[in-house]
């Protein structure tokens, strides 16, 4: 992480005017359209972009791994002065995994499920060191497994990928990538599939592995926070081109392309709250319909369709003397626009929640339990999985309760039990005082609706949009065609889209359709189960703003289930944090985010990357993985990963109660509001 722009040494990787084309029946399309960059030794170069921007394809081209149908049409790629596209397949193969290695997003599909982990890594080592004896290869594999923090590497060597958790698999992938001490690591969304505490572990491992091997890294990601924390230099990619390229501090301090400015303004931030999000209008263009001129101009808040933006492709030009370069005809106008109220829309008047609360008590959940029976492998009988283990909370009318937790904590199960998709094992769910947890309460169902995470699985592919939104009306015998048009208008879709099928829509538009369907019956409560998690940043901001607008307009009550703490902070009034089926902390947004008292909340918050390089900070990195929920630890379920754990924690499960005053509920024997100093915390762990 040292300076590099002025480094006189030749760059490790140099890409000049790279063009990648995809062959289609209607002629070639440019996936990557003239990209140039260099990566110095030991440097971390971040490439940020939304899906379809061409960021992964750029690096696949460097690796010589372009998918069928794509080819490098122009440009040069040099690794240490050696031109890569000119190499024959055999020599390129020897470079891959030797001098450059790639880490993919999904460790599940990147590892061969029928081979032992150790065997797969040994294979990588042997490919590049055919002369090494077996014992030496074995020793090297054990060494790299240890290096990436896999405990007990000799035993883990003999295990199969399905015996590894997601975070451990990604560590194994990293081990495989660094096994031959490459000069260049390409990490494509390396932590996107992981939970935030595991992401923090993996990024720490990656940093340490790089420090040991001295590898440079290209980090491809959509996560501005991750880039801000890890990268030295960053390029922002859109429509197959670099829009902006700068040192990480400069990019985040003075973003100078309207797209970069828009991206940052549309990102909910963990360290801020309150203001409405800027949302970049429209959606990223598909490959076939990239606009002429500047690819971003139809969505640009600065361009206003000026002739230059429509007609001419802007070059990536330096701003001043430094390395900060921007591809915008009007980059000089960006600073003024950046600070204008257009980009920072004023916060809307606060919702009339207190008044609405008077109309009814809202949703109340008391001592709710949901158990699943899980049959034992290789043995008789079954175990009980306590997916939801005794939860109690209320959501007042018009309020938003954010429910945060990592995967497997039971937050989605909770949503489904409330919706009646699962029958509760025990406990009570009341809506305005009426018990709705019984089966015969089907007529209450329409008062609560749901929006799911996956915009692709949410809509029946064989139905038209009209039929999808009409379905709830038809089920309940209240179908009116005007109502469907009305719903489309509410979610910002035009009525002429009604006859099309879901496959013709992008993720964000599909999510709008799903919201329209959920609202068609005029529900009181909307359960949003990771409703914005699958969307690109700019689209996510649109949907969040839409949801907030609809909530104000119709007085909706939200249960907002998510793993993304920044989004939860932005949208929630109150927040509950779940761990292994229990709420460990609950309070107002300010209480939970500014003065967290439970160590789990504290570590979650510290693990989230913040999109501000100036705020790089030490973080609490939780050890280990989530315990097996079939056999949760005794006492406090979190104690096995807790930096404060003492003997009492193993004996008595702490109740969720007000331990710190002010109505903030914490399930911890040793609550301490506020973020602990990391040094003090490490000392606690020693002691």
């Amino acid at each position: 992480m040292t300076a590099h722009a002025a480094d006189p040494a030749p760059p490790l990787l140099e890409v000049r005017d790279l063009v990648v084309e995809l062959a289609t029946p209607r002629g070639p399309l440019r996936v990557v359209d003239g990209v140039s960059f260099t990566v110095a030794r030991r440097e971390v170069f971040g490439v940020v972009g939304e899906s379809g921007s061409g960021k992964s394809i750029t690096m696949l081209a460097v690796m010589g791994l372009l998918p069928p149908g794509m080819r490098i049409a122009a440009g040069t790629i040099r690794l240490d002065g050696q031109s890569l596209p000119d190499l024959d397949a055999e020599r390129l193969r020897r470079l891959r995994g030797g001098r450059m290695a790639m880490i993919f997003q999904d460790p599940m599909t990147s590892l061969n499920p029928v081979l032992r982990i150790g065997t797969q890594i040994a294979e990588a080592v042997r490919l590049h060191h055919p002369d090494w004896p077996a014992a030496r290869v074995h020793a090297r594999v054990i060494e790299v497994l240890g290096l990436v923090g896999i405990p007990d590497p000799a035993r883990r060597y003999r295990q199969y990928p399905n015996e590894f958790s997601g975070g451990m698999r990604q560590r194994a992938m990293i081990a495989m990538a660094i096994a031959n001490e490459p000069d260049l690591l390409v990490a494509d969304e390396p932590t996107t599939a992981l939970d935030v505490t595991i992401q923090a572990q993996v990024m720490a491992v990656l940093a340490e592995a790089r420090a040991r091997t001295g590898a440079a890294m290209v980090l491809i990601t959509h996560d501005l926070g991750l880039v801000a924390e890890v990268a030295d230099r960053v390029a922002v990619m859109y429509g197959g081109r670099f829009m902006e390229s700068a040192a990480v501090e400069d990019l985040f301090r003075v973003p100078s392309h309207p797209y970069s400015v828009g991206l940052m303004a549309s990102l909910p931030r963990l360290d801020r709250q309150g203001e409405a999000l800027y949302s970049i209008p429209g959606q990223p263009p598909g490959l076939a319909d990239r606009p002429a001129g500047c690819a971003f101009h139809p969505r640009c808040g600065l361009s206003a369709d000026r002739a230059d933006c429509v007609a001419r492709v802007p070059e990536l030009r330096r701003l001043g003397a430094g390395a900060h370069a921007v591809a915008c005809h009007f980059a000089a106008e960006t600073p003024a626009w950046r600070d204008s109220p257009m980009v920072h829309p004023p916060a809307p008047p606060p919702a009339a929640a207190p008044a609405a609360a008077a109309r009814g008590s809202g949703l109340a959940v008391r001592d709710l339990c949901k158990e699943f029976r899980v049959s034992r492998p290789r043995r008789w009988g079954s175990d009980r999985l306590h997916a939801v283990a005794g939860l109690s909370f209320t959501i007042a009318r018009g309020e938003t309760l954010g429910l945060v937790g990592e995967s497997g904590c039971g937050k989605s199960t909770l949503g489904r039990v409330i919706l009646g998709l699962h029958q509760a094992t025990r406990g009570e769910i009341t809506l305005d005082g009426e018990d709705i947890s019984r089966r015969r309460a089907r007529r209450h169902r329409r008062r609560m609706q749901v929006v799911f995470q996956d915009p692709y699985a949410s809509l029946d592919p064989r139905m038209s949009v009209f039929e999808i939104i009409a379905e709830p009306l038809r089920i309940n015998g209240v179908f009116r065609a005007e109502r469907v048009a009305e719903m489309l208008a509410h979610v910002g879709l035009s009525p002429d889209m009604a006859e099309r099928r879901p496959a013709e829509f992008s993720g964000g538009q599909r999510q709008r359709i799903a919201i329209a369907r959920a609202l068609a019956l005029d529900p009181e409560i909307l359960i949003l189960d990771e409703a914005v998690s699958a969307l690109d940043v700019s689209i996510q901001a649109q949907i969040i703003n839409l949801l907030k607008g609809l909530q104000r307009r119709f007085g909706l009550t939200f249960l907002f289930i998510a793993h993304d703490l920044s989004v939860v902070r932005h949208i929630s009034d109150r927040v509950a944090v779940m761990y292994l089926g229990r709420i460990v902390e609950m309070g107002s947004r300010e209480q939970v985010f500014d003065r967290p008292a439970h160590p789990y909340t504290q570590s979650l918050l510290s693990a989230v990357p913040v999109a501000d390089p100036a705020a790089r900070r030490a973080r609490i990195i939780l050890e280990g993985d989530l315990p097996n929920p079939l056999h949760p630890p005794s006492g406090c379920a979190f104690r096995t990963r807790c930096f404060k754990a003492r003997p009492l924690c193993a004996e008595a499960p702490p109740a969720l109660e007000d331990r710190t005053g002010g109505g903030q509920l914490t399930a911890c024997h040793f609550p301490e509001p506020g973020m602990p100093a990391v040094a003090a915390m490490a000392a606690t762990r020693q002691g």
Partner: protein
Amino acid sequence: MRVRRSASLYFALAMLFGVAVLVAVVPLLPVYDPYKQDLGASLTPPFEMIGDRLSLFGTDQLGRDILSRLALAGQVSLFIGLATVVLSLFIGVALGLIAGFFRGWPDTLIMGLADLQLSIPRVLILIAVAAIVGSTIPVLVLLLALTSWVAYGRVARAMAMSLREREFVLSAVTQGASATWNIRKHLLPNVMPQMLIVGSFELGQVIVLEASLSYLGLGIQPPLPSWGLMISEGQSYVEFDPWLSLLPGICIFMLVAGVQFLTQAFTSETDAEGEPAPRPTT
């Protein structure tokens, strides 16, 4: 639904066109009565004159015109094939969707029945029942359908099991939809394309199965011809007059292979999700 244009597609269309001409057009022409015997002209080879007329495909051992018998036999075989596929598809989809959507005891029951059926050779059941009940065309269709629903049932069940967990079904449930609604509106339209593919494979199977039954004398009864029966009748003459068995064999091949190739041209572009072909991601 897009079709992949390839050589095998045109080959398939050509073969099916040939069968269609034989079955639909030939009976309209002034050809000979398929039942009329002429012992004096028995076993005439193809392309020879009988008196003053050309016998295109020759005659059989009873002097009946093979071309017109092939046409009639084709109608019989096709009817049995299509009727069986429609009936077994209906049974299979209904049972499969019920088993996959409700799980629990209906699933145990239906899948138990399916496993039981699969464990007994299908031909054995057919032979046994046909021998006892006799074999009229309706009985044959019913028998064939009852023994071939399992293929549809298993695929429909597997798809129903995954579809019932899909969010669009769950959200319909939260809106108060009944099981019938979900099966009718969401499951059925999503499994039908797959079922038609299974059906096209089964059509070939059923026609061959009917042919084997008729060959054993347990299917279509003479003098009504079916392609399988014609092969069986020509068996004794195969050494010197091979066309008797060869011609109906070619007909079966053209129909079955034609349908298979045609299905393949369709299946390569469709899937149950109705999603477009995957686009390259970043």
